[in-house]
């Protein structure tokens, strides 16, 4: 940050500190990358004037895949997912530049399908911030608002700082110096996410839940048994006929 730029705090010191403490925790050995990303996108919604947030990683097969989202609603996930082919996140990832769209309802030419889906969700402005570490680009942070216009400069600084926090947390950067190693970390993170998606399906079927409820249930199970989200997800998949009460310390 340059000297004359300042972040306006107005009551968000707590959540900002929380986000950075979470990062410090990632420098310790044992952390769950999907949990970390989930908390970070939730921090974005509480710290910034945005209505939803998602985080996408490069899958190294030419597209972007969702690592975390503040909403598990299918249509929200699809809105993130289609950016694998075209959208602000893909552009931010490829160019390494922030992409800011004030009003999707009047700017429909660039990404017609993305704009149409976002509008159907009531989302009107969008920000995509590339996740970058030195010369490596690993994905993008996606922020959505229901109203037109753009975030304040102060908010954009916070958003960029959170994107940097996300990048470092995902890459665990102290051990990485080379591009190929960076990319192998992305693979690990994305595979963890797939395990969680599979577990959501097991819970949805077993407990009669929709996918959003299934995710909430999975997180509650993990918290109550004091285990990582990924470990809980694997246990759910390995034992699909169990009852899955939220408070059972054995699952």
């Amino acid at each position: 940050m340059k000297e004359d730029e300042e972040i306006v705090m107005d009551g968000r010191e707590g959540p900002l500190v929380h986000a950075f403490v979470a990062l410090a925790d990632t420098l310790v050995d044992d952390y769950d990358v999907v949990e970390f990303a989930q908390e970070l996108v939730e921090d974005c919604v509480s710290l910034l004037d945005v209505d939803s947030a998602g985080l996408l990683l490069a899958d190294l097969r030419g597209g972007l895949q969702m690592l975390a989202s503040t909403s598990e609603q299918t249509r929200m996930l699809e809105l993130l997912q289609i950016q694998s082919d075209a959208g602000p996140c893909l552009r931010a990832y490829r160019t390494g530049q922030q992409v800011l769209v004030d009003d999707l309802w009047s700017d429909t030419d660039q990404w017609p399908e993305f704009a149409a889906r976002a509008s159907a969700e009531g989302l009107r402005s969008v920000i995509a911030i590339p996740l970058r570490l030195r010369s490596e680009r690993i994905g993008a942070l996606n922020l959505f608002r229901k109203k037109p216009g753009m975030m304040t400069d102060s908010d954009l600084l916070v958003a960029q700082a959170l994107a940097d926090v996300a990048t470092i947390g995902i890459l665990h950067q102290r051990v990485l110096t080379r591009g190929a190693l960076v990319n192998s970390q992305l693979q690990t993170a994305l595979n963890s996410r797939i395990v969680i998606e599979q577990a959501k399906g097991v819970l949805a079927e077993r407990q009669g839940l929709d996918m959003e409820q299934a995710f909430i249930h999975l997180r509650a199970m993990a918290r109550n048994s004091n285990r990582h989200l990924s470990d809980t997800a694997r246990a759910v998949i390995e034992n699909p006929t169990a009852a899955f009460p939220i408070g059972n310390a054995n699952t």
Partner: protein
Amino acid sequence: MTSTSQQFLAALAEYPDGALGPHELCVSCVKVLPVDRAALTIGGESTTWEPLSATDDTAARIEAHQVVTGEGPAVDAAERGGPILVDDLSLEFDRWPGFTTALGRDAYGAMFAFPLQIGAIAIGVLDLYRNEPVPIEPDELTPMLAVADIVTMVLMSRPPPADIDTTTTDAWWTPSPASSEIHQATGMVVAQLSVAPRIAYLRLRAYAFAHDRPLTEVASEVIERRLRFDPDDER
């Protein structure tokens, strides 16, 4: 599909019907990728680990040492759920003391271990070797991952269901697109049939193939509860 994927599928298609096995997969890897040797270790989920095939004796020896010592790039790759890339095996004593000691003079060159996986579906590991310690470049990783995806599909789904003719199409071996819905549907079928995720995934793919519909569409139907898989059904 990347051009390396196409080359790899073309290499697989050269084998006569029924002759495509793990050894042919290894040989095809060396044919299309910038590596000198390849090997496959099978295991994961509840299966014990064992070497499956290798292009030559050196690679076979290295695979055997990994299984016996329980150490090595493939072991770590499977445990971590992500690739392990080693520039120079001779420098890795601290990381894998038992493995590198057992290797002796074979501890030379580069080794890249790719877990063959889709989330909780874990088939094994593909190990790729270079005779010299030449590090992998970032743009070399994508083709290797694409080949690993196809190897995963082939190993997971051999033999194909009886009513699918793989001589006329390599679509059966082509990995499905990545989508949350496919993975969620896999989980639902796991619970519906009380089977391992690999079996659930294959059932979904076989259904899509048999009905000539995209897997993403079938997955949506499962999630919307318009399609179920019941143990008693013949699908």
